[in-house]
């Protein structure tokens, strides 16, 4: 079963705009991670935020985590055509360090 749910399922924006994706989960976690996947191939790790952190930045990426609401958001600023991909959140459970994944948000950046 999947732990996280991403919202929206699909997002289409113009190049240069900001893209925001959300993730909700159900159980307590060690950390939450965001990954990118191009064309149904391998996953690329983007950023990890620990359960005791509230915000984290990496380049054009900004991730927030609200453990009280069991939700996270990924913001991509100044989007580029190369950002077109599917984005997944994955939560690491405290008990067994396994990653539980959401269904992903498909992001399309229009030139």
């Amino acid at each position, binding site marked *: *079963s*999947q732990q*996280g749910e991403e919202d929206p399922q699909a997002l289409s924006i113009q190049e240069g705009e900001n893209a925001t994706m959300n993730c909700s989960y159900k159980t307590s976690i*060690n*950390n939450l*991670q965001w*990954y990118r996947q191009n064309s*149904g*191939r*391998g*996953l*690329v*790790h983007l950023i*990890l935020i*620990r359960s005791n952190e509230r915000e984290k930045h990496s380049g054009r990426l900004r991730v927030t985590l609200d453990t009280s609401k069991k939700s996270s958001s990924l913001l991509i600023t100044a989007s580029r055509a190369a950002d077109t991909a599917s984005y*997944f959140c*994955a939560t*690491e459970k405290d008990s*067994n*360090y*396994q*990653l*539980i*994944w*959401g*269904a*992903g948000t498909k992001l399309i950046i229009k030139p």
Partner: protein
Amino acid sequence: DAGVTQSPTHLIKTRGQHVTLRCSPISGHKSVSWYQQVLGQGPQFIFQYYEKEERGRGNFPDRFSARQFPNYSSELNVNALLLGDSALYLCASSLVVGRYNEQFFGPGTRLTVL
């Protein structure tokens, strides 16, 4: 350094057959995890191995099995293939098993069951 490698890239099988998928982790990584990703969905955890021992198993039937070799490479075996086993099978490696351990993914093996 080479990343995680998987073979084969694509595979077509018929129902009832058996398949073996292979994964070589990043040099120095001792943990390998396997995931199944059905089209349009997120990955589902199948197995995790560390130091040749199974450390975790997802909700998959006994038709799925795996092992890790002394060189830390791994095989995923699926018996009695069903149409529903058609998916992208992803392998990920990490240094160890534990908190905050980043997993590095291979490109996947696309399995089609006819």
